[in-house]
């Protein structure tokens, strides 16, 4: 056992070996994408979107489901497809640091509720929707952009790009882009406007979000 214990010289040699490359390591870490995101494989991202899209379309067009059941099904698919927490943090932006832990926790809860309600209300009405992969799938620095074409009866087809990132070892949607307009960027500017116009208080955003959820719930009740 004693022979295994490193001597002083050993330690010094080890120190040198470990610490010499540190600046390089630090530089490497600095250029890596922030957060726990790894590079996402384009084929994997495309397959992921295709599968999620097929599930969504099947749920929306299922003749056995009524509107509330359809919304629930769509909501469940969205929750396992979208990186809701990461997207919420991106949207809150610099105010993440201003919010206290309780506010942040409530924000995460409200944002999850809003995004699922909004998207499932929107998709839930897309009866007869058809979805197919578009021609252009491309890689960006950190994620993949998967292009899809959405066709609905009596409306011209439109294209949607899904930004897919690797989150905790799984592909997850982090943004939806329609005609060059990113949902997370518009929402970020919207949320920051609410905070700024109410004296820079994160609490005012939370209040607006609570009101919106009440309105969405009321509409769902009517629909």
């Amino acid at each position: 056992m004693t022979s295994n214990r490193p001597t002083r010289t050993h330690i010094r040699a080890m120190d040198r070996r470990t610490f010499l490359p540190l600046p390089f390591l630090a530089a490497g870490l600095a250029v890596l994408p922030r957060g726990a995101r790894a590079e996402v494989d384009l084929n994997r991202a495309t397959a992921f979107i295709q599968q999620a899209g097929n599930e969504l379309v099947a749920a929306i067009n299922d003749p056995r489901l009524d509107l509330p059941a359809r919304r629930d099904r769509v909501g469940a698919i969205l929750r396992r497809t979208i990186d809701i927490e990461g997207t919420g943090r991106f949207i809150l932006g610099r105010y993440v640091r201003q919010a206290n832990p309780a506010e942040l926790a409530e924000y995460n809860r409200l944002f999850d509720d809003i995004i699922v309600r909004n998207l499932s209300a929107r998709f839930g009405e897309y009866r007869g929707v058809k979805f197919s992969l578009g021609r252009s799938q491309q890689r960006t620095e950190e994620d993949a952009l998967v292009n899809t074409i959405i066709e609905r009866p009596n409306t011209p087809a439109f294209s949607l790009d899904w930004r897919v990132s690797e989150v905790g070892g799984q592909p997850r949607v982090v943004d939806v882009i329609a005609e060059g307009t990113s949902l997370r960027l518009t929402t970020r500017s919207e949320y920051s406007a609410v905070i700024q116009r109410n004296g820079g208080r994160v609490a005012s955003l939370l209040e607006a979000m609570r009101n919106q959820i009440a309105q969405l719930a009321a509409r769902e009740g009517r629909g």
Partner: protein
Amino acid sequence: MPPVRHGLLRATALAAVLLAAACATRPPADDPEALAEFREANDPFEPANRALFEVHEVADRFVLQPVAEAYRDILPQPVRNGIRNLLGNLRAPVILANDLMQGNISRARITLGRFMVNSTLGLGGILDVSREWGVPGHSEDFGQTLAVWGLGEGFYMFVPLLGPSSPRDLAGQGVDFAINPLTWLGQGAAVDAAGWTRLGLTVVDTREAVLEPIDQVRATSLDPYSTIRSAYRQRRAFEIENREDGGRAVAPAGVTGFGQGVTQPAPPETRR
């Protein structure tokens, strides 16, 4: 008298007066993040813009939106598509001029070829034959040309009835209007009537195309004004970039756009 000019001038004059009346407060210099955000929004006349936005919202809810909804209810989609194609085709000379001014010869050839095919085989532009052949259209305007020439968009403007804009894009619309041969073609009651009809249809067609997005913004946005501001900026940047991949045509200007017929993705048969 060209129909659009009066309205445009009046709107610009009104905007200028109101813009001078109210300015946004600049955040203090010791808050660099707030300052960066202020610069990014680039909306120094925000209070005035918000007032104009409210004016527009009232006009929209009482006039534009109901008319666009009636238009959708009354006319079947093939007819609406025909009108959209026709409007897009009538704008082809302006698109061609801007393609050329941007030095984009390949896109200019597409615009010219589409105009020739659609004007003849497409029965004066009602049918988008070229798109069926796998040559989808694109839009251009002088605001985009100015951007390609290196001019920044300038501050944000919201012009009632015209929608979100900027000094560059507003000036661009004026130039597009001036270089459109239809502006100067002929005179008399019939020509005037045709001009007004084209203007009216363009407005109704554009509003119809954004019925769902606007409903969506109103229903889900906590602050529709800033949502539209951000969406407009992103959309313009995307249009200026001329990124055309996989047969997806770059769309014309969003809420203020003309000839939306080119926004659709390529038909399924030609895809893949």
